[in-house]
């Protein structure tokens, strides 16, 4: 029987979304799930070992092919467009929804201290957030939670991979002063999470914020 690795590589290449083991098994029926899982791991390993430009990532409950992070500078050069980032308002709102889901709009607003209608709409439009039900209280307000796109966007396999709030705080360098400096300055300095050993062109990757188009907080139509 043919080595499933080649088939897996081809199938992952044409897929436009992460493929779960179940879906892969539906396509490669002649192999057991166990065999497919082994082959996927071997593929993952061989990519790494051979210093390839691609990798097999596990995200949103499935597998997909993606480029290696250290090659981002060249891809940016090809695309000549920076990925758009969420605005700070959108990111704060998303963080609250992610960690407090399911949560109502009023509860989000109580934490942020500002209205979130516009931001919430943007997050829904971007499919990062979805309606998950209604709260059993007066007025039965809509409850919001995160979506599958959210997992893909941040590279999580599933919600259990969401770092704890403490872990997230560790990702953010604390200023030397007491208190918290906030992420105003952080926005422009993504050091720390970049993959080690990558030949990153700082001017390309460590966007100076200004060049990165911010979306999310502002509805372009308003």
């Amino acid at each position, binding site marked *: 029987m043919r080595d499933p690795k080649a088939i897996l590589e081809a199938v992952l290449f044409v897929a436009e979304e992460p493929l779960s083991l179940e879906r892969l098994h539906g396509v490669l029926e002649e192999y057991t799930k166990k065999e497919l899982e082994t082959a996927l791991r071997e593929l993952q390993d061989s990519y790494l070992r051979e210093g390839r430009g691609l990798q097999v990532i596990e995200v949103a409950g499935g597998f997909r092919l993606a480029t290696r992070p250290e090659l981002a500078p060249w891809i940016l050069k090809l695309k000549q467009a920076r990925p758009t980032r969420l605005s700070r308002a959108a990111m704060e709102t998303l*963080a609250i929804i992610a960690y407090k889901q399911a949560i109502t709009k009023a509860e989000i607003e109580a934490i942020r201290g500002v209205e979130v209608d516009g931001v919430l709409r943007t997050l829904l439009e*971007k499919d990062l957030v979805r309606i998950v039900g209604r709260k059993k209280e007066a007025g039965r307000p809509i409850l919001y939670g995160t979506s599958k796109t959210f997992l893909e966007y941040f590279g999580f396999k599933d919600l259990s991979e969401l770092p704890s709030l403490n872990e997230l705080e560790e990702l953010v360098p604390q200023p030397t002063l007491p208190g918290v400096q*906030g992420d105003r300055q952080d926005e422009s300095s993504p050091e720390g999470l*970049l993959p080690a050993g990558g030949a990153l062109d700082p001017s390309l990757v460590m966007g100076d914020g200004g060049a990165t188009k911010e979306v999310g907080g502002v509805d372009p139509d308003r």
Partner: protein
Amino acid sequence: MAYQVKLEVFEGPLDLLLHLIDENQIDIYDIPIARITKEYLTYLASTPQLDLDGAGEFLLMAATLIHIKSQMLLPKEEGEDELQAEDPRTPLVERLLEYKRFKLAAAGLRRLEERQQLVYVREEFGEGETPEGPLEIPLLDLLVAFRKILKRTSEIPVLVIEQEEIQIEERMASLLNRLAQESPLTFSSLFHGEQRRLGVIVTFLALLELLRQGAARARQSVPFGEIMIYRMEEGRPA
């Protein structure tokens, strides 16, 4: 006191307060309310371009601060234990701490966003894949698009109400004509110049019908992008 106002955008009153607390190296558990209130108001007063949308929230916080200040000036009631009486600052401190947690969480997620954005996957619109089979636009997108247009037309005062019947068939033909000249067209461009609600509805229905018949096809090349309308011929893009 010379106060350097930084014209930074704050994400609301709590954000501004945290900034002031931070900048003045204040212990968040023991906020000198009079001082911070003054700083807060100074900031507001010196920001003429404070966006009106958020002004209400900033002012409500100003009121809250003044209220706390006044409470702290009140003499303790007879027999009230020092320890028992709740510090009037406590609710605010709790809100600040809660908000700060999520502000940090957002910064952490930003790191993950940055990391993930270094990794590219293949775009959905590659491979010269022909638009075939079922549509890929979720309900929300459709409703969003349709509501936008309905809303827009309902806001334009219509002075003369014509009783002219716009036939869907006619509109389908004219849409096809436009698509024959230029394909793809953006979804929104289909409605340009259309000021009447009825006209928009007819155009929308004509489009739905073309899509149903397979004479046109709607696609979004990126998840949040414009919906593009393609002319189709015998199941393939023209």
